[in-house]
Every structure is written in structure tokens, then in C-alpha cells.
């Protein structure tokens, strides 16, 4: 089993709320993503057993939603918003800065498996741009100094 007993329980709790079981697909995927860090066929199979929706239907839904990585990613998934408001305030240079600091190109993972860098669409922080989301947390009004401090903090926690 990949999913922990806590995750399974959380999925069961979600399932119990809904009038129809298929509505629990996205909540279940979210629980799994938060635990595992990405989704794959094994995860779909386990979810299928818990919520009683065919594996294929779970995969079908999951593959539509880009928020869930379908491949393993680094311990810290850095998601830089490259949409318009962030771009106007330097998202391109933020990406270049991160590429330089991490020594990788966007889309890649550092050799130590710590950081994956990707670009994503508007995350609803347009008036606190530029911004990035790392795993589930938002970092807004970014400056080079802030980015340095955040990376250092994460490295020390890792």
C-alpha cells in the first residue's frame, strides 16, 4: 500500500459527505497528492478500492488536472506563476534567477532530488506578484533577497 492509514481515513471521511461517490475522486486525489507528492496508476488503484469508482475513471479524471504531477518530483516543487500580472513584475527574470541558483532548467529536478522547478498559470496572487508556490505554500511579493532566504531555509530543513 502506498496510502497511509491516515490518508485512507481522510478519503473515507470525504467520501461520506457526498451524495454520489464519484464526487470524492478529486478530494481523494488531493489527499493522495499531498501524501505521495505525485500520482500514478498504483495510487489510482488504491483510491479505486477505497471509494468504489473504477480505476480507469479515476485515471481519466486525474489526467485532466494539471495541478497533480504524474511523475515523481523533487522534495520541493517550485511552481512559478508565469502568467501576465506576474510577468509584468518580472516572472521571467525570477525563473532565470531560480535556474541559476538551482543550477537546473525549468522542468528539471536538482540531482540531489531536492528541488523541481516548473512554471504554472495564474495562482490568484496577481496583486502580490511575482510569486511562486512551493509544494502547498504561497510565497509572494518576491525579491532576489527573499528567494535566497527561502531556498536557504528549505535547504536547511531538508
Amino acid at each position, binding site marked *: 500500500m502506498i496510502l497511509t492509514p491516515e490518508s485512507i481515513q481522510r478519503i473515507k471521511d470525504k467520501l461520506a459527505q457526498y451524495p454520489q461517490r464519484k*464526487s470524492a475522486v478529486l478530494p481523494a486525489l488531493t489527499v493522495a497528492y499531498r501524501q505521495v507528492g505525485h500520482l500514478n496508476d498504483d495510487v489510482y488503484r488504491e483510491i479505486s478500492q477505497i471509494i468504489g469508482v473504477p480505476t480507469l475513471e479515476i485515471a481519466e479524471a486525474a489526467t485532466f488536472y494539471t495541478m497533480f504531477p504524474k511523475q515523481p518530483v523533487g522534495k520541493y516543487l517550485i511552481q512559478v506563476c508565469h502568467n501576465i500580472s506576474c510577468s509584468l513584475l518580472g516572472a521571467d527574470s525570477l525563473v532565470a534567477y531560480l535556474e541559476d541558483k538551482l543550477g537546473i532548467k525549468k522542468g528539471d529536478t536538482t540531482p540531489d532530488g531536492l528541488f523541481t522547478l516548473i512554471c504554472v498559470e495564474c495562482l*490568484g496572487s496577481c496583486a502580490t506578484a511575482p510569486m511562486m508556490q512551493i509544494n502547498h*505554500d504561497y510565497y509572494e511579493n518576491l525579491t532576489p533577497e527573499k528567494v535566497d532566504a527561502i531556498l536557504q531555509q528549505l535547504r536547511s530543513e531538508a
Partner: protein
Amino acid sequence: MTFYSPVITNAKEAADNEKLHLFKYVEDPDQPKVETYESHGGYQAWRKVLSTMSPAEVIDEVKKSGLRGRGGAGFPTGVKWGFVPNDSTKPHYLICNADESEPGTCKDRVLMERDPHGIIEGMGIGAYAVGCHLMFIYIRGEFGHCAEMMEKAKEEAYARGHLGKNIYDSGYDLDMIVHTGGGAYICGEETSLLNSLEGERGMSRIRPPFPAIAGLYACPTIVNNVESLATVPHVINRGAEWYSSLGTEKSTGTKIFSLSGHVNRPGNYEVELGFSLKKLIYDPAYGNGIRGDRKLKGVIPGGSSTPFLTPDMIDVKLDYESLVEAGSMLGSGAVIVFNEDTCIVWALKKLIHFYRHESCGKCTPCREGTGWLEKIISRIEAGQGRPGDIEKIEEICENIMGHTVCPLGDAAVMPIQSAIKHWRDEWQYHIDQKKCLVKSEFAF
């Protein structure tokens, strides 16, 4: 770790200004707590509705207030509620659309983070009006912290008897589910949202049937934006007459504008509808002018899906009618400001990339067209534009416009069409000279 957006608001102004109501308490860190919300008059509208009003009276009051949907379409909220058939034997559902993802828009998030009970109270009133006993809030997946806020507020609301069985001894039962999505822009479109909430891929549905007749689980369903619902308790507390005295004749009330891009003070500002766009951008209390003393190049007034305005057009009032007259739209109220250093082709490359990525793929014009547009605009931007590319873009836009099931296709082409209309020379320069007229090099 930021679980609370550091975004600037005009809460101070709202605290002193009788007319503003959505932002009165958003800078009070205790406002998300139910006791604090109650001490600020919270849940009084909900009590009033359950103890003294019939659903029809609630709908009537909201109709009379003139409140229109704040998510983008601007459809009158009360009228929408009135579409739910009252002879149906199926369950009815109310869904609060918190899938905020129109580029430039960051207002609903602030309400969820800082005044979650205001949303629950508005949802409750809406639910009662349409005969719903199970309501949902659909929150975009990336807003995990908002979902936590709403979950917590929901639990508090149950504990205080604002939700659950026999609320305030009225005999009315109401439950609530906090649901999170998976990061798809399209799910902000109501029929895609319904599919997504049913555990399907978030693809749009053909209307009719309209969701008010056959929505979630094929039952009558109303989908309202966060800000619309958060406004409802104020309409009930202070009356439709008061609400409709705010704003303009046809665009009543207040609206939160998310101001972003090249301004000195980006932020979320609650103002009366009909407020001056110029003032919002230049007044020190709001945008405080263009960053770095640069000149203004253009403004998108209602989220990335709405047409550009040029500097000579910004003397416009921010209301539904005035913006249409000016050739644009109020949309979600996301004002994006571009300074003179912005290459228009570069800006559109960013936008079309987004729409291509978010197209659900159901309708051919949108699925294929956004891909072609991205390809052509990107090559122009990269200095590889070909003669005739502008005309080709225009032709593709025409073939998408109005030919898709949901508005995503239109949303993708409207900013492009307006950018070509206003800055055709710049596009042409890009193709002829194989480079930008102005280079967008923005340091962070």
C-alpha cells in the same frame, strides 16, 4: 510560510465609509473567528431570513437590489435564483464558485482568507432562497489554505448552530461541503465546474439544459461567485433600496477590483461601481500611478479575457455598461496595467499560452485555434513572423469567436483582437524588423 495573503486592501477606507461593506473587517485578524464575525453583526441576516422571510421574498429582495454576478458574466443574482423551478421534486443545490483563476483576479481569495463566515452566511441565504439543503463551495485546488479556512469556519458555523439541522429552530436544515479542484481554469465556467464536482474531467456542457433546471447530479443547481454571495447578507441587512442606491443605476452596489501590473500600489480595492478607472490607477489611495515613472501603455479592465483600453480611454467609469461602451468588459474586475516598456506581442504570447493550456479540448475551434494562435504569436515574438501572420491571426480569431460551447474560446481571442486593433503597427514592426519595438525586460 504565507497562509494569509500580504495583499494591500482599502480596509481602512471601508471601515469609515458607510457605503463600503465587503472590506470593512478584512484587516481584522480575528474576523475569521465566528465570535468576532458575530460581534460585527454577522449571521444577523441569516437569522432574519430564516425567521421572517419566505424564499420568494429573499429572491425578490436580491432582485430589487440589482446585485449582479461578480464572477465575470454580470448576470443578476436574484433573477438567476428565480430560475430554479419550485415544483421540482429533486434536491436543489447551491454552489459557491471559488475557482478563482482568471488571470489578474485575486479578490475571492482575500474574502475566503479574511472573512470566511461572510461567504457562508451569503451561501446559506442563497441556499434557502432556492430550496437547497446541501450547499458546496468549489475552491481551486491550489488554494489549499483557503479550503482550510473555509473548513474551519464551516465547523464553527455548525458548532454555533448556523448550519446543520433545524437552524435557529426554524425547521430548516442545511449542510455544507468544502470541495477542492485540481488546478483547471476551465472549472470556473459553471458547467465545467459541475462536471468536475461530479468527479469527471472538467469539460463544459451544452446548454440547455441550464444548470438551474439540470445541474449537479442532473438536479436544479445555482452557481454563484464568492463575492456575489458575500454581498447578499449586506443586501438583506440593509435592504435592497440601500444597496441599489450605491453605484450607478444599472450597475448597483460595490465591487472589489484587483489591481495588478505596473502600478505603484497593486492591491484589492472595494469601490462603488461607476468609480473612475483613472482614479483607481493614479490616486495615492489606490494604485498611486505607474511604477517607475513610466508612461501608461494600456489597461485590461476586467481580467485577462477582456479587451484592452488605451491611455486615451481610461477616463471611463468602472461599471458594466460604461466598459461595454468603451469596447471592453467589467469581467471579474481585474485591472491589469501595462507600462510603455511592455511589448504587446510578448504580452499576448503569455496570454495565448495560458488559454491554449487551459482549453478543455471539447470544441475544435478552441482546441485547435488556441494552439495555432500560440504558434503564430510565439513565432512573431521570436522574430520569425511572416507576412500575412496578422491577417491569419485575425481569421483564426473570427473562427473561434462565438463558435464554442463555453466562453473560453471568446475569452482567448478578445484580448488578441483588441491588441491588434490598438497596436497593429507594433505587430507589423515585429514581423518586418524581426524584433520587439520595445523590449519587455522586467526585473523582479
